[in-house]
């Protein structure tokens, strides 16, 4: 009987003070709101916030890039989820298991690519990547967009795209 009364008293106390507890936690949340810096994605032509993008996007920005003399683009790409490349950047890299070159052979190696590489918003063909290898010096951010982008970025972006953005010019005389 005593135990039962204690239980009722405990329930009563919780009912009485739950609003004050909620109010305290609400004040705590209001006092600790952190405004995050808005992050624009070069890969999106509408410059929407990353949370509004319908695609799966991974971005490595300049502060996160730990570049030394031995760093290569492929070593950065391998850090993205669902993205893989070998040692040689000229070899096809894959997004979600599908290579950027083609899934099937074509006459005279004229197959359309399935994932486009954009260097400062300029698309490179698969053939160009075989002799032009991007480097990481002065790079600002690297982004991988997984998912079909053919409507917005061309027919060769069926599987996704890789965006390398070098630091853009400023109006100051600096180096």
């Amino acid at each position: 009987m005593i135990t039962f009364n204690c239980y009722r008293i405990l329930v009563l106390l919780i009912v009485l003070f739950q609003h004050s507890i909620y109010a305290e936690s609400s004040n705590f949340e209001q006092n600790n709101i952190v405004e995050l810096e808005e992050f624009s994605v070069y890969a999106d032509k509408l410059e929407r916030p990353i949370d509004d993008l319908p695609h799966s996007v991974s971005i490595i920005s300049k502060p996160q890039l730990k570049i030394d003399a031995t760093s290569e683009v492929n070593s950065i790409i391998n850090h993205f989820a669902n993205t893989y490349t070998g040692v040689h950047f000229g070899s096809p890299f894959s997004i979600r298991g599908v290579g950027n070159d083609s899934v099937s052979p074509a006459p005279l190696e004229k197959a359309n690519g399935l994932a486009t590489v954009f260097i400062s918003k300029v698309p490179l063909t698969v053939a160009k990547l075989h002799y032009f290898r991007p480097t990481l010096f002065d790079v600002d951010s690297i982004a991988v967009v997984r998912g079909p982008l053919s409507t917005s970025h061309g027919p060769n972006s069926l599987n996704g795209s890789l965006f390398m953005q070098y630091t853009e010019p400023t109006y100051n005389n600096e180096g």
Partner: protein
Amino acid sequence: MSAKYASFDTYELGLVQNIPLLVNKLSTRLTIERKYSKGSVDYVTLNRDDWYRNDVNHYRSQIVMAT
């Protein structure tokens, strides 16, 4: 200006310069890079070193114009 050096004769030299052509209207950014490696790279997928010779020179330029 940037200079990095690692083992296996690996080095990277870079020079970047902003050149304003018109005040707050037109500017260009020139980048010159020289990168050479005798051959060791970090193969992160297999978590081991690999050998791949690298010898590239890059010259990049961008132009930005205020609209």
